[in-house]
């Protein structure tokens, strides 16, 4: 099969935003391949409290087309920087209860160092650049996270 650089990059990445729960096993199955010796998976989970205040649930909102584009930039940067075989980035939107998983990043590589470094870069960068917003809903109010100084 002939592939140019772009197509190759596409087949190595799976980027998705969805309001449905993520199936972790499917994500891992997708990144796994016989060429890989290690997979690093980061799962964000909804915590029950922020600064001692009890969280009831979170609400995630995305500027979807731009968020997808920024997530693709992250995946492309990962592929350019590290010898990885596959990277998957899923983010949920909508209402999530405590314990649910808003984000999963899975990176498979021949060697584990690249998988760890790439996965960490991906989540760190996602939190800086991807237009997704999170509102924490408490018993007595709600806060858009990081909005104010």
């Amino acid at each position: 099969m002939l592939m140019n650089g772009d197509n190759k990059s596409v087949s190595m990445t799976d980027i998705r935003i969805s309001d449905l729960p993520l199936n972790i096993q499917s994500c891992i199955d997708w990144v796994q391949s016989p060429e890989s010796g290690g997979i690093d998976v980061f799962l964000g989970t909804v915590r029950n409290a922020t600064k001692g205040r009890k969280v009831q649930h979170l609400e995630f909102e995305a500027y979807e087309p731009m968020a997808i584009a920024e997530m693709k930039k992250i995946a492309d940067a990962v592929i350019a920087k590290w010898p990885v075989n596959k990277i998957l980035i899923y983010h949920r939107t909508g209402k999530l209860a405590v314990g649910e998983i808003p984000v999963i990043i899975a990176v498979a590589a021949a060697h584990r160092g690249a998988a760890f470094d790439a996965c960490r870069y991906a989540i760190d960068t996602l939190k800086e650049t991807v237009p997704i917003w999170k509102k924490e809903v408490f018993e007595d109010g709600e806060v858009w996270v990081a909005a104010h100084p």
Partner: protein
Amino acid sequence: MGKVLTFGIAKEITGGGVVDVPFENGITAGGLRTLLQSTYPRLKELKSFALAVNGEYAVADQLINDTDEIAIIPPVSGG
């Protein structure tokens, strides 16, 4: 006059997911940012906010037309 998409806290501040903003074609992103801040003063209370034009973060001297898709991007907090 153009439409501006808003998200998160910016949606609450501006009172809608899409707002009409009276700017002239050829305004810079920096100029539009100032105009938005004077129209919606509570935007100044944010830690920061960016503008996106056609799905890309805009730089300050970038020129904007009313055919562009413009969005206010308050501080992101995904993950």
